[in-house]
């Protein structure tokens, strides 16, 4: 065995230039495949992160009845000890936000409009979706100071300015009448026109008082330290709670359409990946084929001086396998640095995109994802592809006509 290895090894270095070209064609194939997949994954991760922060949050704890009947009657009891209880193992939990969410009528001096009232913890909201950056006028409320912050659109429709009073009217817990006067402390601009025309933020204690829901909230938003911990954290909370009337929802359950859209995109990228494989496959095949033809004379001579076809084929196969490994390993190393570079220096999308996304509180960038499984899979795929291509010289040796090849 070792003699074949030795022969193969020597053959590889006998023609360094040829080896180098073949190795580099495999190496670049790996780099391109890695890069494409990392960019694609990175863009998707960012989209999930942005959409989740913007819309639903990552994990939501709520009464099991609330999903079907989002009424205050289905709020649940929330005390500080509760928040502590779910943070048993908090390496993976970043922070949590208690919220009361209900639909009420908001009235100015003459106008009345439907409004979505959110009683919440300001600091938490800001950490989740940069709420404070959306303030366009005035200031934010302090906890329990009886002031409100509302969407510019709604304020405009009610003819209210900072310092005016807004009346909130609706139904509290268990049919209690809820009515309260709030000073408008500030205005925010929400990028979604609908929300801008409907949102009223008040502090959580104010909302609990207004809606006769002392110590109750309708949902608790839990944010993990990374999107990928969502399921683990949800499971942990589930097992840590002794209240079986509570349901834990994760973002894929809350935004199935986002998940579906992502799947659709993934399917598309897989087609693109397939096309890339065809291109790099041809590149590798081209070099291997030319290499084989270049050596036909050599093979012919070896066979005519009495070398067994099987043994020659084995030597050549070992050679190509070594070359494949060299290519895949060097490609993975180079690819790692390329991906690393684009991980820290994401591709910046055009100015037009930037203007648009800024309003949404998102950055117009396309970062590369740095995930070990991408390296493993892409490396493996290219290795298998190369190995299959490497059967070509082996087959050629078995079918070689000695006389013809010696003549070239």
């Amino acid at each position: 065995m070792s003699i074949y290895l030795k022969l193969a090894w020597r053959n590889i270095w006998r023609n360094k230039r040829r080896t180098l070209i073949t190795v580099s064609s495999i190496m670049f194939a790996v780099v391109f495949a890695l890069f494409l997949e990392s960019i694609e994954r990175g863009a998707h991760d960012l989209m999930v992160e942005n959409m989740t922060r913007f819309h639903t949050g990552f994990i939501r704890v709520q009464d099991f009845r609330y999903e079907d009947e989002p009424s205050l009657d289905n709020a649940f009891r929330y005390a500080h000890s509760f928040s502590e209880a779910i943070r048993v193992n908090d390496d993976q939990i970043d922070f949590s936000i208690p919220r009361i969410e209900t639909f009420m009528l908001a009235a100015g001096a003459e106008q009345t409009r439907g409004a979505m009232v959110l009683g919440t913890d300001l600091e938490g909201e800001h950490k989740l979706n940069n709420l404070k950056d959306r303030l366009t006028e005035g200031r934010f409320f302090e906890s329990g100071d009886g002031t409100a912050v509302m969407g510019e659109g709604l304020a405009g429709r009610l003819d209210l300015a900072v310092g005016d009073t807004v009346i909130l009217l609706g139904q509290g817990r268990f049919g209690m009448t809820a009515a309260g006067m709030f000073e408008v402390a500030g205005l925010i601009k929400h990028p979604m026109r609908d929300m801008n025309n409907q949102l009223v933020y008040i502090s959580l204690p104010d909302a609990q008082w207004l809606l006769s829901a002392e110590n109750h909230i309708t949902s608790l938003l839990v944010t993990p330290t990374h999107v990928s911990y969502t399921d683990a954290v949800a499971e942990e909370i589930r097992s840590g709670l002794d209240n079986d009337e509570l349901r834990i929802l994760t973002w894929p359950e809350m935004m199935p359409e986002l998940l579906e859209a992502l799947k659709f995109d993934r399917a598309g990228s897989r087609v693109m990946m397939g096309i890339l494989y065809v291109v790099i496959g041809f590149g590798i095949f081209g070099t291997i084929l030319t290499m084989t033809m270049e050596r036909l004379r050599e093979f012919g001579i070896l066979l005519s001086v009495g070398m067994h076809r099987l043994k020659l084929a084995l030597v050549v196969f070992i050679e190509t396998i070594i070359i494949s490994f060299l290519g895949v390993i060097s490609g993975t190393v180079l690819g790692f640095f390329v991906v690393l570079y684009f991980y820290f220096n994401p591709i910046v999308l055009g100015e037009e995109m930037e203007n648009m996304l800024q309003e949404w509180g998102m950055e117009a960038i396309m970062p590369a994802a740095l995930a070990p499984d991408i390296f493993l899979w892409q490396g493996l795929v290219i290795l298998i592809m190369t190995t299959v291509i490497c059967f070509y010289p082996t087959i050629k040796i078995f079918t070689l006509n000695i006389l013809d090849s010696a003549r070239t």
Partner: protein
Amino acid sequence: MNMLLSISWRNIWRHPARSGVLLGAIIAGLWAGIMVSALTNGWVQQRFDNLIQDELTHVQIHHPDFLTEREPWLFIENADEILAFLENDERILSYTPRLLSDAMIQSPLTASGVQIRGVDTESEKQTTTFHENLIEGAYLDAGFRNPILLGAQLAEKLNVEIGHRVVMSFQNLDNDITSGAFNVTGIFQTASSPYDERHVFVRSEDLNELIANQTIYHEIAIMLFDESMSDSLTMDLNHRFDGIAAESWYELSPELRYITDMGGSMTFYIMVIIMLALAFGILNTMLMAIFERMRELGMLMAVGMSKLRVFLMIMLESVILTLTGAIAGLIIAHLNVNYLGKTGLDLSGVGGESMAEFGYDAIVYPVAVSNDYVTTIVIVIITAVLASVYPAIKALRLNPADVVRD
């Protein structure tokens, strides 16, 4: 020159396998480039159509303040004139007027905020495909009194079914709150559940009766024969009529623009990567081919062929090969795109099947634009020719005596 041409030509056919590989690499590259852009076009186009045809349409007309204020009295005052103009404009495929209002919807269980869309059943059906989203019950034109369509999400939230009654309260033209009872006749489901939760559909005449004592419209939605004419139409409309604002889809829906633009940037980078991969493939194959021929080239020089001629010969060979490959690749890609354009590329095999339940087809129909062909061909030809320059220069530096000795 003629001699060089015939030498090059013969050289190509003297090694059919080697030329074949080069041709193959070029054909594959061209095919890949065109397929990638055609698929992405088809993709973005399909999503675009899905969203546009459902409700948004190409162009919408409102009172200039309606979209921000949403007050009932901000209706289109000269609607009759505008509708008459639209009827006679050749760019327009169809149009439909709508009556809109924000309301509080109540069931025995709970209340929720919604936007009412009062539609003209006949023209709405011709203009948009929204009626295809109905999953249960009948559309508004089925002959019931005060019919209303609810989103599945909202029906569940309100705990109502077909045949139940809901009450909606909204402002009328005089700024008073007025209410009306509507009968649930149908349930719809679109791709977006937040949308389903916030929108209800009624007949515009039913809503009109409760809001005003004259026929009013807040929105006119227009579908065009060709999307690219939306800008010229909005300009004409804004110019011709006072007191209205006509806007095209991308002004109305920045999200849709985000998707379209994002799709564009994504394709661009994918194209760049695939083109780079292609360039390296061709470069490597060319390099291998030249190094294999060193002995032959050395021999040519030894018998007195000038370096310039050797260089020209190599370049001629690559140009001939590249052009042949480009033409063949173009034909294959064109046939492929045309074929898939008819049958579609089914993505359900690679994880696209789940979209079907949301009304999106998991089949993509590639659309090739002549621009993509041109760009791809230019890139492929430039890459292939450039890739042969380096080996050709390399060949110039050969010392014939050394090479022939190998």
